[in-house]
C-alpha cells in the first residue's frame, strides 16, 4: 500500500470510527438521567469513545499489512486500550475542572458553559493523544509512541477542540455531534499518518508477489519479517519464506537485517547481508519476496 493510499485508509478509519460511535453516543446521552452523576456519565462517554476509535485505530496496521489475525488482535487491543484512554482522558478533564475551574471561570454560567466546554475539550484532547499512542503500544515501538505523541498532540488538540466546540455551538444537534466526531477521528488519523513518515528511518517497498506495492515504515527497534502473523512484515503466499525469517534492527539510525533461521534465503543486492546496514535503493530478498529500501512519499 503506497503512502498516499495508506493515509486515505487511515482517514477512512477515523471516519468509520465516528460513524460507528455516533448512535452509541446518542443512545448514551439520551439515557443521561440513568447516571448518578456527571463523573460517571462523562466516564461512560469517554470509555465508549475510546473503545470504538481504539478498535478501529488498533486494527489499522493489520489491515495495512493484510494480516487478518493481526487486524483482529489489534481490534481487541485497541478497544481495551482505547477504553482505558477514554477513562483517563475524562478523569484528566475532571481534574482540570477541579484544579483550575473556579480560578479561570468565576461565574456560575461561565463554569457551566465555557468552563465545562473547555474541560471536555481537555478531556477529548487527552483521549485523542492516547488513541494516537495505541499503535505505538500495540507494536511496543518507541518510535511509534513518538509518532503517536506528535500526532496525538496535534490531532487531539484539533479534534478535541472541534468536538467540544460543536457541542458548545450546537447543543443537542445530532448531526453536529456526528460532524464533531468525524473531525475528531480525522484529525487524529491524519496527524498520525503525517508524523509517521517524518519519524520513520526509511521504508521497505515490496516489489513483487501478492502484496506488491506495500510500504513498510521502519519505526521499531526490531521488526520481524516472515510468513507468521506475529511478524511485523507478514509475507503470506511467498515461496521460501520461513515463519520467522529475518529481523530488521534499527540502531543509531541505521537499519540492519539479520537472518533468523540458518539457510533461509536472505540477500541484500544478491549477497548475504553480512552485518552491513541498508542504504537507499538496496534490494532485499527474503525468500522469493523482494523489497527496495528507501524513503518514499
Amino acid at each position, binding site marked *: 500500500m503506497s503512502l498516499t*493510499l495508506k493515509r486515505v485508509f487511515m482517514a477512512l478509519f477515523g471516519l468509520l470510527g465516528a460513524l460507528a460511535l455516533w448512535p452509541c453516543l446518542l*443512545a448514551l446521552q439520551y439515557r443521561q438521567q440513568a447516571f*448518578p452523576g456527571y463523573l460517571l456519565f462523562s466516564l461512560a462517554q469517554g470509555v465508549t469513545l475510546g473503545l470504538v476509535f481504539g478498535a478501529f485505530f488498533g486494527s489499522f496496521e493489520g489491515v495495512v499489512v493484510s494480516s487478518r489475525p493481526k487486524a483482529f488482535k489489534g481490534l481487541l487491543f485497541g478497544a481495551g486500550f482505547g477504553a482505558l484512554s477514554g477513562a483517563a482522558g475524562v478523569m484528566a478533564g475532571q481534574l482540570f475542572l477541579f484544579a483550575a475551574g473556579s480560578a479561570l471561570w468565576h461565574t456560575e454560567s461561565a463554569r457551566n458553559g465555557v468552563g*465545562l466546554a473547555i474541560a471536555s475539550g481537555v478531556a477529548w484532547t487527552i483521549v485523542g493523544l492516547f488513541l494516537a499512542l495505541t499503535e505505538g503500544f500495540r507494536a511496543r515501538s518507541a518510535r511509534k509512541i513518538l509518532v503517536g505523541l506528535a500526532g496525538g498532540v496535534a490531532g487531539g488538540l484539533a479534534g478535541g477542540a472541534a468536538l467540544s466546540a460543536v457541542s458548545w455551538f450546537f447543543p*443537542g444537534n445530532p448531526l453536529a455531534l456526528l460532524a464533531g466526531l468525524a473531525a475528531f477521528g480525522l484529525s487524529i488519523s491524519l496527524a498520525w499518518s503525517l508524523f509517521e513518515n517524518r519519524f520513520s528511518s526509511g521504508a521497505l517497498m515490496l516489489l*513483487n508477489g501478492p502484496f506488491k506495492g506495500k510500504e513498510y515504515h521502519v519505526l521499531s527497534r526490531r521488526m520481524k519479517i516472515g510468513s507468521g502473523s506475529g511478524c511485523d512484515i507478514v509475507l503470506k503466499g511467498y515461496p521460501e519464506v520461513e515463519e520467522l525469517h529475518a529481523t530488521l534492527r534499527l540502531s543509531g539510525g541505521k537499519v540492519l537485517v539479520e537472518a533468523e533461521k540458518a539457510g533461509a534465503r536472505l540477500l541484500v543486492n544478491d549477497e548475504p547481508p553480512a552485518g552491513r546496514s541498508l542504504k537507499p535503493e538496496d534490494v532485499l530478498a527474503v525468500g522469493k519476496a523482494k523489497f527496495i529500501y528507501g524513503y518514499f512519499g
Partner: protein
Amino acid sequence: MSRAAAIRPANRAGREEAVKMIKLAFMTALLALATVAAGAQGMSITQIGTERLLSFQETRLYVSAPLLGLQPGGEPPLFEVWESADGEEWESRPVNAVSLQPNADAGISFFLLLDNSGSMWTDLDGNDTADVAAMRVEGAKAAARSFLSALSPRDRVGLAVFNTRYWSAVAPGGSPEDAVRALDELSRPVSEDAYTELYLSMARGLSEFAAEPGRRVLIVLSDGENYPYALKTGKPNPETGTASAAPSDIIDRAVRDGVTVYAVRFGSQRDPLIAGVAGESGGRAFDAMDGGQLAGVYETIRRDVLAELSVDYRAGMSRGEKRWVRVATAAADGRKLSATRYYYAGTVLGQSASDAEAWQWLLLAAAALLWLVLVLFKLERETDRAGVRLLYGPGGQSTRFFELSGAQTVIGAAPDADISIAGNPSLKASHATILFDEEKHVFTVVSDSPVTVNNHPVTRKRLESGDVINMAGTVVVFDESLLAKATEARKAKAARAGKAKPAAKPMRKRSGK
C-alpha cells in the same frame, strides 16, 4: 392610641422624627404582611448555587421561609427536594444538608445599583427644588448609609450608579465604608446624562457582580421607568452605543449566574416590568415613597436574606440545560410549604433529545461491515504476466506495466523499441534486451554496456521476480507471477524428469551390468 400617647413632642423637630419612626414601623409591618401574601406558599427559593455541581454533584438552594419561624441554633426542619427536566415529571433527590442562617456565617455579597437620573434631583413629587435636603437623591443616600452601617463585617458590598452612563463606584466584594465614601461623590448629571438606562445598567451590574462567590443580592433602586438614551434620542449612548437590554435578558442572566434581584421603586413613577424581573430571579419588588420607607425596605431585604436557610442536595442528571427544582417542608402547625424554580446546569458533550434511531444503528453496522471488507480483501494483487514497470517513473508512469512477450524484448529510448521509454537522454536507443527461454521459462537481461541488476553491474543476468534493473538512471522492476513461476518450475521439473526417465532405465540397466 397607645402609640400617640407615647409621643411627647418637645419641639417641632422631635415630632417630625417621631412621625417618621411611626411611618417606618407601619411600613415594615405592611411589608412583612406583603411578604406572606407574595409567597402564597410561604416559602421561596431565592438563589440556586451550582458552584459544587460539576465537582460534587451538589446544588444549593437558598430558601426564604418566614412562616417556619426558625430561630438561630434551633433544629432545622426536614426538607424534601425533587428535580425535573420539564417541570412535569419529578424525581426525588436526596438532601445532603440543611443549614440555618448560612448567610450569617459566610456573609452576603450585596450590590447596590443606584439611579442617578435627572429626576432623582427633584423633590418627592417630581418638582424642581433648590432645597437639597428635599431631593430624592438625598433620601436614597441616607437610606443607603443606614443600610451599609447595619451590615455585618462578613458582608461584602459593591456599588454602581447609573443614568445615561454607568459608574462602577465600588467593585463587588468591597467594604461598606468604600460605598459610603462613594455616595458622597454623587453629583447631578447634565441633561444629556440624565436618562434612566435601567435594564442596560442592570445587565452591566450583573456582569460585574456575577463573579462574587456565595450569596449574591443585587438591589436596584430606580425612581422611574426604563428610559434608554439611544431609544429616546435616536443617538447612540456615549458608553454602550445602540446596545439594548430587555427584562427577559436580565432574568436570563440573573438565573444563569444565580443572582437575586430586589427592585425598589422609589416615588410614584414606577417601571412596570421590573417587579417581574425581581420575582423571576428569586427576589421581590418594593415600593418606597420617601427616604424613611426606603430605609425600611433595605432593612427588610437584609433581614430576609439573613434569615434564609440553605438546602444542599444531590443533583440529578436530567437531560438538557434547564432544570426545575422543587423544595417542600412542613411548618410547625403541619401546613405544607413548597417552592419551585429552575436553574441552568452544564451539559457534557451536548445532550441528545432523542434516542438513536434504527437507521443510525444501521450506520454502525455499515461501518463494521466496511471494516470487515477492508480486513478480508486486499487491494494488492499479484501479477499474472511477466513484465517490467518503472520504479520511479515520471508522474503516473510508475504504475504502467510493460508486458514481456516473445523471445526477446528490446528496451530503449527509440520509439520503435519494444519497450520505449522517453525522457532520459542517457538512455540508448536500444539499451538492453530481455531474452525469454520458453522451454526453461527463464528471463535473462542482456546489454552491451553494463546495466545494474540489484545494484550490481552486469552485461548478462538471469532475472527473477522483483529484480531491479537500472539502465543509465532509468530504473525498472522485473516482475512475474511467483505462483506461476512455481507452477512452471514444477512442470519443467516434471517434464525434465519425464524425459529423463526412459534414458535413466537403460542407464540403470547398464549400471546393473
